[in-house]
């Protein structure tokens, strides 16, 4: 067992790294950032290994608390938070490596921003005090604004403005609702709030207020339009974190707050979530089909995949929720990887326009192989991480609503269409564009970035047990909390007739 405050240590390491990076030159800052994120990854692995998954294990582990009067500096994680922390820590060194050569100015500041963001994001998952959570949750976006606004593309101002406006709207509503819940429950402790029974009539409004914030972060249709712009303008590593971690904050919010705190409202408003998720999948998949900009296409596909998450979470059964959580983890891997793949060729040709590429399988065979693997993960091919989560989530949704499941499952057709169309336009075809044909294959650094992601995608696809197991007990607790309110829709086995007994229809013959 670990007898030192490992969570605080994990918050401190990137923070110290960030401050140190500011005082170093470009080269030093790079190495400092890499060292800090690798150390952090080691700590995360240690955390994963020492997390108690036994039957008698407490829900919250590695807890530490210091009362600060109004709120407390309380940290602690359950299995769900653990896995999101592991994901974040895994992606971070890859982001630093991806920015190694492509960021050319203000490098110390850039590295500091990334490290600072890591602290804040981990804080979101570790916080056990709702106000502490809020601070991390909102502050985590500031480095992201900076990364897009300073190191972004040509139209970065508009993108950060949109990003800012959307999140601001959601945050204000959520803050008000948070203050109200604190007033009601008389505590800022998240575990206590999760167990508190709010009056059913108040739940709906509170739920909607939290929903405003989480739906934007997710993002759900129709508050998704900030995401394509943010992705397009962000530097590669920014996109990876945006897709890999920041998009998971909304889903985490639903699991941590909306569902356990407001089970009645969650059940009541499930149709709303289902409808928005179903629309998101079909709508954004079709939009992805007609994109000419690679990053925009992948951004829209992210919105579609998040539709599986939201629908799965509100399926009110184990397959749905576990599936949604696995989609969150797996999407963090393959969408991050896809953005990195875009980054690889963007670094060479400085365009994201799909039509400028073609025939890359000829001159970049290794790249084509990695790109294919992540494309397949994105279309949820069994054996990759994408399948496990998506299939479980859909299976869960089917048990609650066949309509929603049927519409969402259309996503597997559309997903194949837009991703393979993208892949064919980039990697297949003749090498008839001289500049694209002249690009060299992956170098050692790029392989070092993509290979771990590929390994993780396959690992989670073939043997997902280590990823699901830590979350199992937490999902069980959540389900126990939700069970009384489980909504019943059309999919219930209407008349399960004991084997052997004739049905009324048969009997009447």
């Amino acid at each position, binding site marked *: 067992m670990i007898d030192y405050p490992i969570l605080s240590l994990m918050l401190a390491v990137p923070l110290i790294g960030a401050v140190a990076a500011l005082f170093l030159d470009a080269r030093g800052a790079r190495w400092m950032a890499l060292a800090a994120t690798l150390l952090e990854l080691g700590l995360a692995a240690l955390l994963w290994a020492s997390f108690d998954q036994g039957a008698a294990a407490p829900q919250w582990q590695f807890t530490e608390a210091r009362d600060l009067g109004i709120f407390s500096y309380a940290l602690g994680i359950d299995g769900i938070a653990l896995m999101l922390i592991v994901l974040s820590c895994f992606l971070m060194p890859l982001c630093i490596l991806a920015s190694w050569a492509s960021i050319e100015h203000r490098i110390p500041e850039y590295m500091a921003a990334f490290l600072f963001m890591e602290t804040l994001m981990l804080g979101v998952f570790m916080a056990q005090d709702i106000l502490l959570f809020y601070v991390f949750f909102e502050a985590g976006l500031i480095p992201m604004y900076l990364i897009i606004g300073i190191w972004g593309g040509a139209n970065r101002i508009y993108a950060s403005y949109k990003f800012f406006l959307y999140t601001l709207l959601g945050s204000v509503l959520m803050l008000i609702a948070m203050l109200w819940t604190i007033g009601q429950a008389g505590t800022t402790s998240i575990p206590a709030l999760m167990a508190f029974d709010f009056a059913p009539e108040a739940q709906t409004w509170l739920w909607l207020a939290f929903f405003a914030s989480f739906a934007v972060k997710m993002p759900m249709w129709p508050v998704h339009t900030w995401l394509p712009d943010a992705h397009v303008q962000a530097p590669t590593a920014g996109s990876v974190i945006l897709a890999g971690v920041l998009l998971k904050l909304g889903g985490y919010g639903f699991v941590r707050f909306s569902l356990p705190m407001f089970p009645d409202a969650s059940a009541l408003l499930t149709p709303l979530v289902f409808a928005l998720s179903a629309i998101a999948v079909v709508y954004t998949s079709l939009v992805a089909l007609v994109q000419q900009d690679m990053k925009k296409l992948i951004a829209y596909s992210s919105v579609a995949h998040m539709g599986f998450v939201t629908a799965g979470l509100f399926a009110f059964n184990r*397959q749905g929720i576990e599936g949604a959580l696995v989609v969150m983890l797996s999407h963090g891997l393959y969408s991050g990887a896809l953005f990195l793949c875009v980054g690889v060729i963007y670094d060479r040709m400085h365009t994201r326009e799909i039509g400028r590429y073609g025939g890359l399988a000829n001159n970049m065979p290794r790249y084509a192989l990695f790109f294919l693997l992540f494309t397949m993960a994105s279309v949820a091919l069994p054996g990759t991480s994408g399948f496990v989560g998506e299939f479980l989530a859909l299976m869960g949704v089917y048990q609650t609503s066949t309509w929603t499941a049927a519409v969402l499952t259309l996503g597997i057709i559309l997903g194949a269409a837009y991703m393979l169309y993208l892949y064919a336009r980039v990697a297949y075809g003749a090498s008839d564009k001289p500049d694209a044909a002249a690009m060299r294959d992956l170098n050692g650094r790029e392989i070092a970035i993509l290979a771990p992601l590929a390994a993780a995608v396959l690992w989670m696809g*073939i043997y997902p047990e280590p990823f699901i197991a830590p979350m199992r007990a937490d999902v069980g607790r959540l389900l126990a909390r939700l069970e009384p309110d489980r909504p019943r829709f059309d999919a219930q086995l209407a008349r399960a007739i004991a084997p052997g007994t004739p049905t009324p229809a048969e009997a009447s013959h």
Partner: protein
Amino acid sequence: MIKLIVFLPLLAALVAGLGNRALGNATAKLVTTGALFVAAALSWVVFLDFMSGDARSYLEPVLTWIRSGDLQVDWALRVDALTAVMLVVITTVSALVHLYSWGYMAEDDSQPRFFAYLSLFTFAMLMLVTADNLIQMFFGWEGVGLASYLLIGFWYHKPSAKAAAIKAFVVNRVGDFGFSLGIFGTFLVFGTVSIPAILAAAPGMAGSTIGFLGGEVEVMTLLCLLLFVGAMGKSAQLGLHTWLPDAMEGPTPVSALIHAATMVTAGVFMVCRLSPMFEASGTALAVVTLVGAATALFAATVGTVQTDIKRVIAYSTCSQLGYMFFAAGVGAYGAAMFHLFTHAFFKALLFLGAGSVIHAMHHEQDMRFYGGLRRSIPVTFWAMLLGTLAITGVGVTGVFGFAGFYSKDAIIEAAYASGTTPGGLAFAVGVFAAFLTAFYSWRLIFLTFFGQPRWAGSDHIRHAVHHDYESAAAEGTTDSDEAHVDHGTVAATAGPGGAVEGTAGYHPHESPWTMLAPLALLSVGAVFAGVAFHGIFIEPEAGEAFWRGSLAWDAHFYEELHHVPLWVKLSPAVAMLLGLFFAYRAYLKNPGLPARFTASVDTLYQFLLHKWYFDELYHHLFTRPAFALGRLFWRAGDEKTIDRFGPNGAAAVVGVGNRLAGALQSGYLYTYALVMLLGLAAAATWAMTR
């Protein structure tokens, strides 16, 4: 042993694929082909064990896969008689196709990639047939889909190959849409995805109903039909067949292995594997019968007008798959599997034979430019002739017949013996399609191997001759009597049908031994697979002892097959002879006849030539609207509505857009954001301390 059979091809694929250019062509070929021959030998051991009645079915666990509440899915390999049949089919054809590709792909510069894909495909297919649960079956299902996508698009520089690959994957995904929903529904109803558990519980569910999309439907009908949609996609049944002819863009060995012998039969395998489920729903069985019959008819009609040699065989495959499905639909699962088994040999033979012809004719695939090839490539000719005798079902009851004679006639008789209306319809269609099968199969043989050479009209041939001349001239050799004779002096005369007669000085060569050896071995299968194995597949007693409950088996029904009226037994033979007769009349005796005839029924001809207009229909119904909707949602939805009234509108209303933008530019907004955050924190403090 089963682990060795399944995982050797995977290992070989990884070695060849990841080693790629570093290891070189020879290593990749040796490793993959060697692995496949070992797997094939072991598979025959397994199969013969089952045939002798010594073996029992068993389950070999491999690894935990997905655990989520009641959903317990493991990687495991199931071996029973049904699996054993598939094992020999897959590994045998795959091994021979690997060997064949040594010759066929000899000039390709991405050979390791090709062999890696072939082996990867074999692995996925083996995972499919050894699956003990629906989700592992789905893994294999999608895995073969991936391999098929990669191999159809193997020559990815060709736009047509690129498009065909995407089409194959996406159309299959439409099938998988149904398959997925079927698995979800099955799990909901039975609380498990384990195939044995589902099959044991299925009969008890007959007649129960469940809610689906707002309606109340019979459970077993719903589940079977959803799963069957998956089978339709993979096995190219009418409606979801459009990808298969286009899949001929892949190299010919691929067509033989994937798009004839193995992958496309996965749907038939699935229906047989889940036969106790289908038995629980009469409606589902009727649908399977009708879809199978419709496909058998549709594809056979289209096959009669194709001029591309590979497409003829592709439509033939589609049609034969229809036979297998209606066999399953009338409850003759043993006959369906039997036809799957014999078909694998003779169809792989026909495809590889076609490949040999294409190889000899310098990549020319249009039969209008063939003719008279039987003397130039005699081994190929004899092999394809045997394949044709097998597919058309030549044989004499009680004496001897080629492979198709036993399996196809069993299917036709079973359709009659079932006594149901769909079965009767399928019987009629089956007989008529047998006539068409004979017609297009002999048409292929006559156009290709008989008559006068019409090679002069082919661009490929002209190119080849020109090239040979140039290289020969460059080398300064004059002793060759084959490379450059008489070019330019050939008297090219316009033959019937507008084709140019003459050889253009081209000399087709017989293929190397690596290609001929597989043809010879498959010929043995095409000749003897029926007579040797019909006992265990469809005879009442031997069959029961062989299958041992691995598919739904009604011994009484198979007994009935022997007692159908004589005219039923004779009708396929008559249909076959008629087909041969018409083909002989039209393509040997009187070569001007087809053109005159098609001119007289132009509407029908155009209808067939356009493959019943499915591609056009789907293009207008799905592809174009999807893109149009995508553009509409993007421009009118996201940009003109959400953004306009959302963020842009907000900025306009408050009038801060520009100022905000200006602030952002200089980085002040981050200060604003921080201030906002601190302000909110202050508000929280105030709220708490109050």
